């Protein structure tokens, strides 16, 4: 259980380090507006978009989980879905063109779309379902209470994850903006596409394993 929460935090740090989740945008916003305060504001908007993207994926699953009888099947199906997204990203190495159409000032909207396009929310699903299942094991509850608990968990997971993401991405953005300078922008930019796709597959596989083995 604690391990799953740590995994939620770690995934947040991991998403934050990925330039694809937006930290270069925070640097660019602060430089373009020529004021420091634009940096935290940009990070806040990026975080909002990411948080909403997480909720958009997690909430439907939290609603489904009150079908306690189908818990294992739902978790296996979710794992398969996450693996499928990873395999898709592995095969289709193209970047989503639609992201380029977003106006540069609409940071929250961009962040929401970027997170969904990369399957960032899906990566959390097996962890989230694992936490929900562990919660349910602690006692027999009415379906309604269970669902309410799951929704609360969805919010907490999304919040913890987004906080970790913002911390990691914000740290890089601030270090580059205040100390290292733009030269390090391209130096810290790694192609995480492959690693990202493989992570999705691993997390999905973990979700199936955990469901089948009753964890």
């Amino acid at each position: 259980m604690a391990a799953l929460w740590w995994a939620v935090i770690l995934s947040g740090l991991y998403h934050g380090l990925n330039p694809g989740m937006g930290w270069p945008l925070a640097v660019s916003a602060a430089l373009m507006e020529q004021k420091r305060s634009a940096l935290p504001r940009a990070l806040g908007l990026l975080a909002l978009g990411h948080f909403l993207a997480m909720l958009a994926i997690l909430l439907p699953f939290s609603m489904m989980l009150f079908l306690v009888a189908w818990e294992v099947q739902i978790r296996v199906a979710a794992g398969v879905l996450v693996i499928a997204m990873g395999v898709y990203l592995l095969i289709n190495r193209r970047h989503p063109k639609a992201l380029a159409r977003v106006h540069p000032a609409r940071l929250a909207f961009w962040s929401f779309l970027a997170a969904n396009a990369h399957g960032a929310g899906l990566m959390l699903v097996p962890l989230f379902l694992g936490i929900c299942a562990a919660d349910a094991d602690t006692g027999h509850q009415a379906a309604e209470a269970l669902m309410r608990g799951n929704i609360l968990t969805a919010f907490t997971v999304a919040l913890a994850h987004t906080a970790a993401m913002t911390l990691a991405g914000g740290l890089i953005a601030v270090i580059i903006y205040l100390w290292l300078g733009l030269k390090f922008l391209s130096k810290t930019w790694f192609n995480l596409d492959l690693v990202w796709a493989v992570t999705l597959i691993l997390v999905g596989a973990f979700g199936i394993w955990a469901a089948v083995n009753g964890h």
Partner: protein
Amino acid sequence: MNLRPDPTFHASPKLAMQAPVENYAFTVMLSPDGAQSDGIAVVDVNPSSKTYGQIVHQVIVPNKGDEFHHFGWNACSSSLSPLTGHAFLERRYLIVPGIRSSRIYVIDVKEPLKAKIHKTIEPEELFAKTGYSRPHTIHCGPEGIYVSCLGGGGADGTDGPPGIFIMDCETFEIIGQYEMDRGKQDKHYDFWWNLPQDYMVSSEWGLPPQFENGVVAEDLLSNKYGHSIHFWDLRARKNIQTMDFGENYQMALEIRPAHDPTKSYGFCGVVVDTTNLQGAIFTWWRDDDGTWQSKKTITIDPRPEKPENLPPLLQGFEAVPPLVTDIDLSLDDKYLYVACWGLGEMHQYDVSDPMNPVLAGKVEVGGIARGADHPNGKPFAYGPQMVEVSRDGKRVYWTNSLYSTWDDQFYPDDEGGQMIMANNDENGFHLDKDFYIDFPKGYRSHQIRLEGGDCSTDSFCYPSV
């Protein structure tokens, strides 16, 4: 795809200026009568090399009559845009359109000395997928490679307006037309943008019947060439404002926005003012309430000349018009270079204050009724034309041909292709005696691209700080 961004992608103009200098230049080789196939010359521009100042490789295409003109990279510093995530492309391919044939070649220059054709897009495919013809300016942008076209559909390119199409930056598949609302835009030439500020500016030359067989004097004197520039909401693909400089400002060609993306101004060169034969530069800018404005900030006077020394086209005017045919802005937004193809002069303006440019330097070579030799004593045909500035701003390269049929009208007695270079150093702006390339017989030269990017390719997404 790389694991790290291409080292020639730079976040800001300042970083691009500090990066290692160019070792090679790529220059158009153009057979004006279509007798030979066009090509791209790879020029050694590394002063410590044994083959410095020589053409060290040629990519000659299999077809004839393409008429190469402008060309550009598949990827540039715009790939570091925080919005698009194309940071792992390679700056590796030159997209070279045939302005007469509408054929496009993609040339792989990863190893400059072994540069070769990677892909050819046939004209029929371009016509079918875009409705445009005569592809011209190339820029790498948010959704892929943007290509402006001078012609619309039909045999003479007047069936529908010309415009821009988008090409996939990895597969080089043509995706389709860019415009969603073109407003008054009915002619096309150059375009460029400011990516973070999300605007684009496009310009106008004329429709294909107005240039393919030479300049049409009646059209010019009745002010029928382009004299407007268009401001676009880049991502909404919408023309938001058309600015008419006035119908006497014929041929508003090159668009050069300030490189620093925090700035909202730029320049546009006008070939000729038909009321007085002057050449002109307009500064355009966005005012506080978001409206685009412009003001004529540079004028260049014609030079009086006896009719017997002039080509038939100009005899009635008894003057040599400057003919401002190309301009280029250094990466620090400090110097604007203005090619006066008629006069035979390259001007250097200090545009630190874009509203009050100051002539800082000038060199003379070639020119109508003057034909000034290069300092090495060799001839320079026509006049200074396509100009390209090195990223560090210290070397200014240019070639001499404007456009096959126009060369013959303005310089009926000249022939040949030359590429030369001027230094911009502590001694000011002056021609380099030792850099002079005479193109192979039968070839003229046009646009130059420098290895690792230059002052008219890269778009930056972060300001110089």
